[in-house]
C-alpha cells in the first residue's frame, strides 16, 4: 500500500464539509418541524409537482435532441467566427436568468420581433407565457450547455476513426452508426439527466414566464405560499416534496452526469473526409438557427437596455450596489468552503466526499431559504439578514461547480508535486501558500468568477427575504417588470449583465494574470 503522499490536512476540508451539511440539515430540520406531514399535499401542490416534472422532461429532451445536429455541425465545419460562437455557447451559464427573460420577451413576447414577423405574413401571434414559455427559456439556457458537452464528446473521437471510415468508403449514415452513435449513446443520457436536474429547481423562469395554476413549479409554489398566504406549513411541505424530487433525481443523475470540463480544446474541428453538399447545407442551417436562437435575445438585451438606461430609477443603482455586496460575500464564503474541501477530496482516494458538495445542487435554494427563514423568524426580522443569507445560499449553490472545476487540478498537483512537497516538509499553510494556491489559481479564479456572476444574477432566496430596502438588482428588475416599467427593467438588465460578466471577467483574468506554466 502506498501511503498518502501529500500532507494536505483533511481537517479543514472536513470542517468545511461539516459546515455545509449543518447549514443544509438545519434548514431541513426547520422545514420538517413545520411541515405537519399529516396534512399532506393539496391538489394544487400535486399540480405543481406534475408541472415541474413535465417541464423538466420537455426541456431536457428538446435541448438534448436539438443539440445533436448543432454539435455535429460545429464538430466538423470550420468557418469564420466558429471560435467566438463556441465561446458564446458558454455565456448562458453566467447570464442572469431574469436578464435572459427580458431578451426572450423582446424577441418572443406579445409585441416581440417574432410576433411582428408572424403578423407581417398574416399569422396570429403566439404567447410566450405558460408551459411553452418556460420550456423555451430552459432550452435557451440549456441548448448551449448540451451543445458544449456533446462537442466534448465529439472531440474525444480519435481522428483515426474518421480516416478509417473514409478509407472504407462508408456512407455517411454507416459512418454515423459506426463512430458517432456509440459515443452519443454514452453521452446523451448524462447530458439529458443534468439538464433535467437543473430544470427541476427552476424558479426565476417560472416566476416570470409561468405562474397560474397550470404553470407553477414547486419552487414557485413555495414562494407563493410565502408571499401570498404566509403559510409556512405549506411552504415546508412543498420544500420536502422538492427535496425528495430534486435530491432523488440528482443522486440518480450523479452516476450518469459527464464531467463538466470548461477548459479550452473545443476550438479544433476534426478533419473529416465526407462528401456531399446536402450535409454541408444542413450543417449551415443548424448552425445559423442555433446562433440566431442564442444571439437574437442577447442582442435584444443590448439594444433595449441601451435605450432603457435613461429610464432607470435611482433604486436600481442602490440595488446594483447591494448585488455587488452579495456577489463579494458569496465569493469569500465559497473560497473558505471550497478550497479546503477540494484539497481534502483531491488527496483522498475515494471521490465520495464530492457528493457533499452536490448536496447543494439537490437541495433547492428555496428549500434552504425556507428553512432558514423559519429558523430566523422567531429571533430576528428575516429581512435584516436578507443579503447575507442570499449570499450564503448562492455560495452553496455554486459549490458543486467550484469543486468540479478545482478538484481535477488539485488532484494533478498532488500527483505531480506531492512527493516533492513531502520531502521538503511542506504542510499546512506553507503547502497552500507555496504549492496548492499557485497551482490552482486559474481554476479558483474561474470558479470565483462563476460564483460572483451566479450570485449577482440570482433571483431566488432574496425573493423570500427581501423588503423595500434590502433588494438585489435581479429582484429590483422583477419589480420593475411587475410594474410594467419595461424600459427601466431593460436598462437594469443591461446593468446586471455588465456586472455579472464584468465580475466573471475580473475573477477569471485575475486567476490567469501572470500565471505561468
Amino acid at each position, binding site marked *: *500500500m*502506498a*501511503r498518502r*503522499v501529500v*500532507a494536505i490536512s483533511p481537517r479543514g476540508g472536513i470542517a468545511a464539509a461539516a459546515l455545509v451539511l449543518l447549514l443544509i440539515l438545519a434548514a431541513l430540520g426547520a422545514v420538517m418541524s413545520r411541515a405537519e406531514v399529516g396534512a399532506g399535499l393539496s391538489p394544487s401542490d400535486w399540480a405543481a409537482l406534475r408541472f415541474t416534472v413535465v417541464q423538466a422532461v420537455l426541456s431536457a429532451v428538446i435541448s438534448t435532441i436539438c443539440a445533436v445536429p448543432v454539435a455535429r455541425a460545429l464538430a466538423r465545419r470550420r468557418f469564420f467566427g466558429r471560435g467566438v460562437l463556441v465561446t458564446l455557447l458558454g455565456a448562458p451559464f453566467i447570464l442572469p436568468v431574469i436578464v435572459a427573460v427580458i431578451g426572450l420577451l423582446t424577441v418572443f413576447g406579445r409585441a416581440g420581433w417574432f410576433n411582428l414577423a408572424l403578423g407581417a405574413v398574416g399569422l396570429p401571434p403566439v404567447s410566450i407565457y405558460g408551459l411553452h414559455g418556460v420550456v423555451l427559456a430552459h432550452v435557451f439556457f440549456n441548448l448551449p450547455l448540451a451543445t458544449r458537452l456533446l462537442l466534448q464528446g465529439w472531440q474525444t473521437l480519435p481522428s483515426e476513426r474518421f480516416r478509417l471510415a473514409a478509407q472504407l468508403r462508408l456512407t455517411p449514415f454507416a459512418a454515423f452508426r459506426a463512430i458517432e452513435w456509440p459515443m452519443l449513446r454514452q453521452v446523451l443520457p448524462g447530458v439529458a439527466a443534468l439538464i433535467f436536474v437543473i430544470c427541476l429547481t427552476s424558479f426565476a423562469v417560472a416566476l416570470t414566464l409561468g405562474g397560474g395554476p397550470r404553470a407553477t413549479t414547486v419552487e414557485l409554489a413555495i414562494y407563493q405560499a410565502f408571499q401570498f398566504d404566509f403559510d409556512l406549513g405549506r411552504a415546508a411541505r412543498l420544500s420536502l416534496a422538492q427535496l425528495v424530487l430534486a435530491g432523488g433525481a440528482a443522486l440518480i443523475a450523479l452516476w450518469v452526469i459527464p464531467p463538466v470540463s470548461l477548459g479550452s480544446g473545443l476550438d479544433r474541428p476534426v478533419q473529416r473526409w465526407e462528401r456531399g453538399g446536402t450535409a454541408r447545407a444542413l450543417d449551415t442551417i443548424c448552425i445559423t438557427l442555433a446562433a440566431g436562437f442564442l444571439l437574437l435575445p442577447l442582442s435584444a438585451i443590448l439594444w433595449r437596455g441601451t435605450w432603457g438606461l435613461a429610464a432607470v430609477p435611482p433604486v436600481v443603482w442602490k440595488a446594483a450596489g447591494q448585488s455587488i455586496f452579495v456577489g463579494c460575500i458569496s465569493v469569500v464564503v465559497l473560497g473558505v468552503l471550497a478550497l479546503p474541501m477540494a484539497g481534502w477530496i483531491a488527496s483522498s482516494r475515494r471521490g465520495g466526499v464530492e457528493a457533499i458538495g452536490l448536496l447543494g445542487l439537490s437541495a433547492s435554494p428555496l428549500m434552504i431559504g425556507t428553512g432558514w427563514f423559519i429558523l430566523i423568524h422567531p429571533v430576528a426580522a428575516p429581512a435584516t439578514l436578507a443579503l447575507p443569507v442570499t449570499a450564503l445560499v448562492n455560495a452553496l449553490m455554486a459549490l458543486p461547480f467550484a469543486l468540479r472545476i478545482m478538484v481535477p487540478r488539485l488532484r494533478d498537483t498532488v500527483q*505531480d*508535486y506531492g*512527493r*516533492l512537497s*513531502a*520531502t*521538503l*516538509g*511542506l*504542510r499546512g*499553510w*506553507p*503547502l497552500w*501558500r*507555496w*504549492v496548492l494556491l*499557485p*497551482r490552482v489559481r486559474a481554476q479558483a479564479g474561474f470558479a470565483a468568477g462563476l460564483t460572483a456572476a451566479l450570485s449577482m444574477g440570482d433571483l431566488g432566496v432574496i425573493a423570500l427575504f427581501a423588503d423595500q430596502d434590502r433588494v438585489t438588482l435581479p429582484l429590483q428588475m422583477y419589480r420593475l417588470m411587475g410594474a410594467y416599467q419595461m424600459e427601466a427593467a431593460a436598462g437594469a438588465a443591461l446593468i446586471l449583465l455588465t456586472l455579472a460578466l464584468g465580475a466573471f471577467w475580473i475573477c477569471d483574468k485575475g486567476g490567469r494574470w501572470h*500565471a*505561468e*506554466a
Partner: protein
Amino acid sequence: MLKLEKFEIRQTDFALSADMVLEPRTKYAVIGPSGAGKSTLLNAICGFISLSGGRLLWQGSDITQADPADRPMTMLFQDNNLFPHLSVQQNVGLGLRPDLRLQRDEKDRVAQALARVGLQDHADKRPGALSGGQQSRAALARVLVQARPLVLLDEPFAALGPALRNEMLDLVQSLIEETGAALMMVTHAPQDVRRIADQVIFVEGGRAHAPQPAAALMDNPPPELRAYLG
C-alpha cells in the same frame, strides 16, 4: 549509517525484500531490469511507500514510520523536481525553510548554492525559462542547501543527452564529496556505474541484493547480472 532490516515491500503482483547496511560517504548504484523495483526501493526508503515488514534504522534509531521530511535524506525524482510557478531562488530556498521566511544568512546560503552550480544569474527566473541542464542544476542547488546525509537519485537526468548527463553526474559527485553525503542512484547505464559508484545494489527477482564493490562486480558479474547487462 542506514540499515534496511528485513525490509519488505508488498503491492499487488509485486514484492521486494532487502536486508542491507548503507555506509556514510559511499556511492551506491542501484541497477536491475525494468520493473524489478529500483524506484520502489528508493520510494520506500524515502517514506512514500509503507513497508509490509521490517524496519529502517538510521544511526540505530527506528525511522520506519517517520515522515518523508523528517528522514535524513533527500531525493531527486525522474521529473517534477522544481515547482514551475516559483523562481529558482524560491525553489532552492524551500530546501531550507518550508515557509520560505528566509533569514539573511539563509538567503546567503541559497545564493552560494546557486553560484556553486553556476546559476547565480538565473536566480529570479522560473524553471520554465531554463534549459534542461540548468533545471537539473537548480534541483542540485536545493539538494546542496538541504545538506542531508543521504542523497537518492531516481534517474533525474534521464531526459538529458549523454554529454550533459555525464556533466551532471560529475557535478553530483563533487557536490556530495563537499557535503560528505552518501549517494544512492538508480541507473540503467553500466558506464555510469563505472563512472561514480563504489558499490552496486543489484535488484532482481524480488530481491535487492546487498551491496558489492562496483569494480569487481562489473568485471566479473554473476549469471543474473550478466544476463541483465547483456
